[in-house]
């Protein structure tokens, strides 16, 4: 599964990396983000890109599991 780690990056890098990944259109991917706000905006972008999203909270980050 494609894993994209966006932790620690400034705006708008997490969204840019997500957008790039959506263009590549893998069937499944995991996106790591480091804040709740980022989590929401990345989730929105993934859903717009036709993915269903499951979120898991880690100790220092959130994992967004996206599936076509």
């Amino acid at each position, binding site marked *: 599964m494609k894993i994209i780690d966006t932790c620690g990056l*400034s705006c708008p890098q997490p969204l840019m990396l997500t957008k790039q990944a959506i263009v590549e259109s893998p069937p499944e991917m995991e996106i790591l983000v480091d804040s709740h706000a980022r989590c929401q905006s990345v989730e929105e972008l993934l859903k717009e890109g036709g993915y269903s999203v499951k979120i898991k909270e880690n100790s220092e980050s959130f994992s967004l599991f996206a599936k076509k």
Partner: protein
Amino acid sequence: MKKNLGIITAGLLIGVLSVLLVKLGNPANMGFCIACFIRDTAGALGLHSAGVVQYIRPEIIGLVFGSFVAALAAKEFKAKAGSAPFTRFILGVGVMIGALMFLGCPFRMVLRIAGGDLNAVIGLIGFVCGIFGGIFFLNKGFNLKRNYSISSFEGYIFPVVLVGLLVLAIVAPPFIKISTEGPGSMSAPIFISLAAGFLVGFLGQKTRLCMVGGLRDAVLFKSGYLLWGFLAIIVSAAIMNFVFGYFHVGFEGQPVAHSDGLWNFLGMLVVGWGSVLLGGCPLRQLVLSGEGNSDSIITILGLLVGAAICHNFALASAPSGPSFNGKIAVILVIAVLAIISVVNSGILKKERV
């Protein structure tokens, strides 16, 4: 639309607060101005000696406190650092040079537009061009690399230092300089300024309000979320300006502003471009500093030192117009922004391959 309701409400409230601060004593169209207020604070601390712009602005302190409390309450306070700190410092200096060419940060630009100042519309055009410049390099891979978690203690130092600054503002010992004339002498009562700043910081943390993020995200992701906040401030501040009789449309005779279109344009171009590279406008940097982001604190120090440089080297504009030194400085900053943009994007690497 429902998800935008929060940021629209926050924007409307911030617009109202900004004009109320003017009513209570702040300079006209300057209920809030992150650049001007950091500049005034630099003056109060003796970092520059421009007698008319020296005052520890409690709005700045309140803003960081507001964001700090909101972040703590939401368990979003995280001490972080290490994303190109010195580059960010330099960008902070550059953004301040641009802002003091125009006479305002993006926040004040919005408030100036809401007061009918058409020079700020020229500034907005420059700001938009600067944002597009930044977006061009983002699309080329511009990136200041990631930050890392650090000891929480590091994140708490800044709010504690600001408590000290607040004490100095209240006690006003003789070594703190306070303007007796000019914009620095005009201020709302300390605790009202502090409370207004707190509210803006709190709302800013909750909504991620960012003047540069609005257009950037609209262009890159077709997301209008942040843009709604930007527009809401203009609408409510304009209405309040009408109510209080502060609304005057025109180029000439606008408060704490000059009417040199080219340099208003270029000043805000620098601010827009620099802010995109930083990942957020000066207001957003203050909010991030309250969330524990030390890279943003370094950026604020860049703004502070930039303000001192602007007044010590006669770079800042006056209501009569920009200075020769200021024009040279803005051109130099544009060159520095270009270098930082190119070096930190993939452009050079691709050429080598």
